[in-house]
């Protein structure tokens, strides 16, 4: 496989193959249109019985209008981020997701339609069968794609030697406080996502006459969680490192006695963490990642590292090391 360039493999597996799958699915469903009744079931309730009907062309249309752009966009994102960056596990997962999504959608839709073809007999079978198939096939294909894609490279973080400690006298109280918020482009993107998700949920509820009210729960949770990642307050003091969302939760406190050392690291959000916000990276690294650039990195005694992208991280690291050296005693 190695003679086929890495970029080509990514292009084929995360852009071309998913597109081909979707287009083939659309072509197949369109070819079935003559053998389908004018009105078919296009939505099934949780009990497995159809509760939404429409013209048979709805499903291939949905696949074309929603499926194809989504898959193309994700694949293009991977290619765009891969240029000039190491191919990290996070990026590789995104690449595989594109193929996985295209297969789930296509098999799910086509399977739902196939069972309703006039020659097959009366009634629309519940989509449980095609969905299970869809997930199964998609996951197998995703696993295969994982092996065919270039090997992922764990990003090597910059050397994490401790920042020079600040001298903190025995009775002194020293603190470092800073507020940090997501950069404007990220805020706009997150708000757009929130609006999209809420709109989709509202549409689903309206279309089903309010019977699917619980569909609003997930978007509401997403909106609240997203809002909580937009602004944070960061403190270094005798309590240790305290990172708190402006909304109050989520919050992280790393007490001084759990800290081995603090330093500053260069962070690449997409390459190392697969995105922005409260992230988990590979290699026991987690943190609040709001932008690329300098981040305060705290190495815990447990070996895990917590990072926060913030300006003046150097002072924060220096103070943390000084407080740890002093023993973290808050003399009163």
């Amino acid at each position, binding site marked *: 496989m190695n003679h086929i360039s890495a970029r080509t493999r990514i292009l084929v597996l995360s852009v071309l193959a998913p597109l081909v799958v979707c287009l083939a699915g659309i072509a197949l469903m369109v070819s079935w249109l003559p053998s389908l009744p004018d009105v078919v079931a296009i939505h099934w309730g949780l009990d497995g019985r159809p509760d939404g009907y429409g013209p048979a062309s709805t499903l291939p249309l949905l696949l074309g209008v929603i499926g194809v752009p989504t898959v193309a966009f994700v694949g293009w994102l991977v290619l765009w981020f891969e240029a000039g960056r190491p191919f990290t596990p996070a990026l590789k997962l995104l690449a595989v997701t594109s193929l996985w999504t295209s297969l789930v959608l296509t098999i799910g839709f086509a399977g739902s339609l196939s069972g309703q073809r006039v020659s097959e007999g009366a009634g629309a079978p519940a989509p449980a069968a095609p969905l299970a198939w869809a997930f199964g096939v998609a996951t197998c294909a995703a696993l295969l794609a994982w092996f065919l894609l270039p090997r992922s490279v764990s990003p090597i973080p910059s050397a994490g030697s401790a920042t020079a400690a600040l001298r903190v006298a025995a009775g002194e109280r020293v603190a470092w406080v800073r507020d940090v918020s997501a950069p404007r482009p990220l805020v706009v993107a997150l708000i757009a996502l929130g609006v999209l998700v809420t709109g989709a949920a509202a549409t689903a509820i309206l279309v089903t006459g309010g019977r699917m009210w619980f569909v609003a729960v997930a978007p509401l949770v997403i909106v609240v969680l997203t809002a909580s990642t937009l602004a944070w307050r960061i403190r*270094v003091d005798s309590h240790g490192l305290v990172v708190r969302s402006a909304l109050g939760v989520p919050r992280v406190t790393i007490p001084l006695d759990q800290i081995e050392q603090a330093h500053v690291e260069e962070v690449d959000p997409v390459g190392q963490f697969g995105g922005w916000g409260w992230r988990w990276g590979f290699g026991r690294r987690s943190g609040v990642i709001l932008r690329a650039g300098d981040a305060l990195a705290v190495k815990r005694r447990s070996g895990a590292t917590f990072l926060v992208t913030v300006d003046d991280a150097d002072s924060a690291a220096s103070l943390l090391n000084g407080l740890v050296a002093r023993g973290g005693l808050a003399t*009163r």
Partner: protein
Amino acid sequence: MLLRVDPASDVPLFEQVAASIRSDASRGGLAVGERLPAARDVARSLDVNVHTVLRAYQALRDEGLIDLRRGRGAVVTERVLQYADLGHDLPRLVAHAKRLGIGPSALSAMIRQEFAS
């Protein structure tokens, strides 16, 4: 923003808090329009009364370094640029004093004299 207070010192706590912030300003660490952290957070970090911090903020407001606005909190004004400008002179002056063996209180007294003349 780095803040240091020493409860054992003769200088009142609120003065020390204000001095910390002023020091940040003179070192160019504060930007125009930057919002200072909430007094409550600062008080909790330094383990002092919130009114101590509020008094420090008010002192800085009286100096014109920050604006206290309802809802927006403490916002750094353009005056910080002047503090930073003056701050450029400080390292050289203090280094000079150290070389001559002149301590901070003597130097402060000399500066105060200079203002009076």
